[in-house]
Every structure is written in C-alpha cells, then in structure tokens.
C-alpha cells in the first residue's frame, strides 16, 4: 500500500495538523508520501521532509496553487492519485474543501473526519455531532479520507525524506482569490493548543471576552467560544468550538459561561480535563466537567487570573 498525505499549510508554513495525519497514515501502514502544494512553499516542504516515516515529499510550487483554491488543487490530486491506495488530508477547511473533488472525479466515496483506524479499509468516524461513532468499511479501490487530527498523536520530526518537484500545472479560469482576513493572534492555534479557555453566551458581550485574555496568557491557552457566543456576535466564527466549528481535545479545557449544548460538547468532550464555570448549577456542561465551579464568572475570572 502507499499513501499520499496532503500537507496542511498555515500562512505558507507547514501546519501542525500534518504530523497528526501522518500518524493516521502510519496506523493504516505502507509507504507514505506528502504533497505540499502552494506558492513559495519550499520551507513547508523542508519541514514536511523532517516528519518521521516519510518516503518522499512531492512539491507543487506554482502560482496556480496559491491559497490552495479547490479547483486546481482537486485537479492536482487527480493527476497524482494513481498508484496510491489512500489519499489523506486533515479535516481542516482546506482538506474538506478539496478532497471530495478528488473522490468524485475518481468515482469513489470519501470518509470524513476519521478518528480511528481499524485496518487498511475499516475506519471509525463520528456521526450525529459525535453522539455516535460509526465503523465503516470501504471497498473502493482508492480510499479518500479526511482525518480528525485529535484522534492521532503527532509523529516526531527526526526524518529526512527526499524532496521532489511536481511539474503538473493545473488550469484554472473559474475561480480566483480576492482577499483573506485572517485573525491576527499571538496565541496558540485552537486545534493544537494544550489548554483552551472558551466563553459562551454567559460572557454577555464581546468586550467581556477580554476577561479570558489574562488567564489565557498565564496558561499559554488558546481562546475559543461556543456557537451561541458567535451567533450573538461577541466574537468571530473562527473561534467557534463545536460540531460546526473546531474540534479540540486539549489537556485542559475551561468552559466559561457555556451551558453545554450537544453541538458544543461535540467539539470538546474528548479533552483530558474539563473545567466548567457557570452560574447555573443545572447547566448540562456540569455533566461532562471534571471540575465544576458554580458562581458569577465576573467575580471568578479575575480571582482565577490573580491566583494562577
């Protein structure tokens, strides 16, 4: 078997998610190649070559792959997929955008958000917002899979794979990049942070989210939010943790003013330790929290910050 992993990029650099996808590929077994596609991605290719257990890194460095638009990326994957038994990407917005195109053009199904590998053709994936786990078997010749990165521990970085250029240049006259507005942040990425502190509707407004900053600074935490807080306009959607937002599984998750709707729990219930701070002692979040503190978050947060 041989597996092609599509590398995740973040602002042109190799994103942490890729090392988790490689771990999933190792669980399947076989030769593992990584595809790095974009414009000016040599540094990302060098970083990918250092991941453990990689056969080779294939680099498609061309302006047509800038911003990883779906149409040229799909065409590139179709061009390269022959000879591979599996093509994997992380279940990031890029992986989700691109991989179904490969599957459709190869006339195979895609398995989304795989969080466990039983064998080379049998996988575990969450359905119904993670309230059920399905075991699915694919008899397709090519298996196209997006990986939920929280299900696999990242591989190390002591490898030295060879790097080779891919000459194929896709045509794209249908879609073009206009602009990107990325939230600037000096905090760790939500998906990869060891500690996450999230606010919900109980925060009251966007300004109050600043109460989480000091605690996040002290703990080196990423800051998240529930969908209710996003819907209320307190914070941008890229902070959303849940079924329709990001899936996180940090060592410590602190939920502040979050009631614990099933859609939110779907995004964080695999965290190692969960702390809930809420004024309503009946809030469902307490049913999953290891430590619950009932009280007024506007008193608790400053106290917590000063005592950490």
């Amino acid at each position: 078997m041989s597996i092609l992993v599509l590398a995740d990029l973040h602002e042109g650099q190799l994103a942490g998610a890729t090392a988790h996808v490689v771990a999933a590929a190792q669980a399947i077994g076989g030769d593992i190649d990584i595809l790095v596609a974009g414009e000016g991605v040599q540094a990302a290719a060098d970083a990918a070559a250092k991941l453990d257990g990689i056969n080779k890194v294939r680099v498609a460095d061309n302006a047509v792959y800038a911003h990883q638009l779906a149409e040229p990326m799909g065409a590139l994957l179709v061009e390269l997929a022959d000879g591979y038994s599996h093509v994997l990407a992380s279940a990031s917005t890029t992986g989700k955008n691109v991989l179904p195109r490969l599957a459709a053009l190869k006339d195979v199904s895609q398995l989304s958000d795989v969080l466990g590998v039983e064998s080379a053709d049998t996988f575990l994936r969450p359905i119904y917002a993670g309230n059920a786990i399905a075991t699915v078997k694919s008899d397709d010749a090519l298996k196209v899979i997006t990986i939920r990165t929280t299900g696999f521990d990242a591989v190390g970085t002591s490898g030295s794979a060879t790097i080779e250029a891919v000459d194929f240049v896709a045509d794209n006259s249908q879609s073009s990049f206009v602009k990107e507005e990325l939230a600037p942040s000096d905090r760790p990425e939500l998906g990869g942070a060891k500690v996450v502190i999230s606010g919900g509707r109980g925060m009251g407004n966007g300004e109050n989210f600043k109460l989480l900053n000091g605690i996040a600074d002290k703990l080196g935490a990423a800051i998240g939010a529930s969908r209710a807080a996003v819907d209320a306009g307190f914070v941008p959607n890229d902070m959303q943790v849940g079924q329709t937002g990001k899936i996180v599984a940090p060592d410590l998750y602190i939920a502040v003013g979050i009631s614990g709707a099933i859609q939110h729990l779907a995004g964080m219930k695999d965290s190692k330790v969960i702390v809930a701070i809420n004024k309503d002692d009946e809030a469902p979040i307490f049913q999953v929290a290891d430590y619950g503190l009932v009280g007024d978050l506007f008193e608790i947060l400053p106290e917590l910050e000063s005592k950490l």
Partner: protein
Amino acid sequence: MKVLVAVKRVIDYNVKIRVKADHSDVDLTNVKMAMNPFCEIAVEEAVRLKEKGVATEVVAVTVGPKAAQEQLRTALALGADRAIHIETDERVESLAVAKLLAKVVDEEQPGLVILGKQAIDTDNNQTGQMLAALTGLPQGTFASEVAVDGDKVNVTREIDGGLQTIALTLPAIVTTDLRLNEPRYAKLPDIMKAKKKPLDVKTPADYGVEVASKVSLLKVESPAERKGGVKVASVDELIDKLKNEAKVL
C-alpha cells in the same frame, strides 16, 4: 437566473439520538425530523436572491424517502417556486446524491446551486464539493457572504484562520455556513400556498444513477460516556485540584 437549492431531511437539531440495541444504526423510529439547518440557510439565501431580483426562479430538490416531501413543502412555503423529489428508500451517500444533483443541474441549467455545507446526521461535508467536481463548475464552500455581480459571484468563506473571499465564474456551486443569514419562519398562508406549488417526483433510475455505495456501515456505537466530576466550592479549591489531582497546571 435560476437558483437550484438542495435540501435534506434529517433528525431535528434538538433531538438527542439513540443508538439501536443491535448497533446497526441510529434509531430514527418516532423521532422528530426536520430540514437540515444548513439547508434552511441555503433556501433562505436563494429566496433572498429572488427578492433582490437577482434570481428569477428558485427550484428546491431533495433525495430521500417519501416523507422528505415535507421538507420540500417547507422550502416551497419559505419561497421556493417548485420542487423536485428524487424518491428512494436506500441509504444514499454523498457521491450518489452529487451524481443525482449533477443530472438535475444538467436538466435545469441553474445559474447558481446552493447547498448546506454539511448535514447534521452523517456530518460528511462532501456533497457540494462533489457536485462541483462532477459538473465542472467552480465552488465556494462554507459561505458567510454571497454577492452576485454580473457573470461572477464573490463568495466569502469561513476558513480555519478567518475569512477568505474568492470570485467564481457563473454558474457556480455554493455551500452555506451558519452566519450566511438567519432563516425566516414560514407563515401560515405561505404554508397553505405551498401545498399547491408544483412538486415533481422522480427516481434515481429516471436519471440512470446507481445509488449503491462501496462503503458499508458495520457498526454504530455510543461514544464513551464522559462522567461528570465534582463541584468545587472556590477558585482556590479548583486550582488545588488542577495542580495536585489532575496535574494539568
């Protein structure tokens, strides 16, 4: 411009699901069903495009059992002009749905196709992208803003780090994210009127599409239940527990 909007009948957003005792699937007997929330957003966007004079006709389509006509009637009540029901009792996966929708696109020649980004039952997030690939039309997924401008559409997309705006040539495929709009509720007179709007019933065979998939569902289980822990009385006790018991600080 004609807008085609795809909808799916799924378990209601607020229902807590149960796994069947034999672990063959999730138990959907006597469970409240509804239109997938992302599909509601898709219908709303299509209707708004018509209200703005950008769209001239809104056609709703679904693939599913007879009962899925309820969701088509809902789409008609919300403002769609007519509906197409591709009736099947099979478990239809994203690829087969995309193949069927590709045939409908071929027949109807819409300027824009709007779908939800994912259905809240299988959580696949595939159909729109597959439809785009099969029809050779460009895609704007996870849209939080859709602006039609002549023969182009600008789509602002919710991506992991923030927002991305892309320009697509029309016709194009768009999938909706949560913040695209807030769907309206259907009014009673519109629900009554919807009963008289045209609804065509077809089968996958009419389109020559085989819906069988090479993916089999072996087993469905409940996830490991997370047990609730303890309530602590103070911030000091919380910090003590996190340091000395959980050892995460």
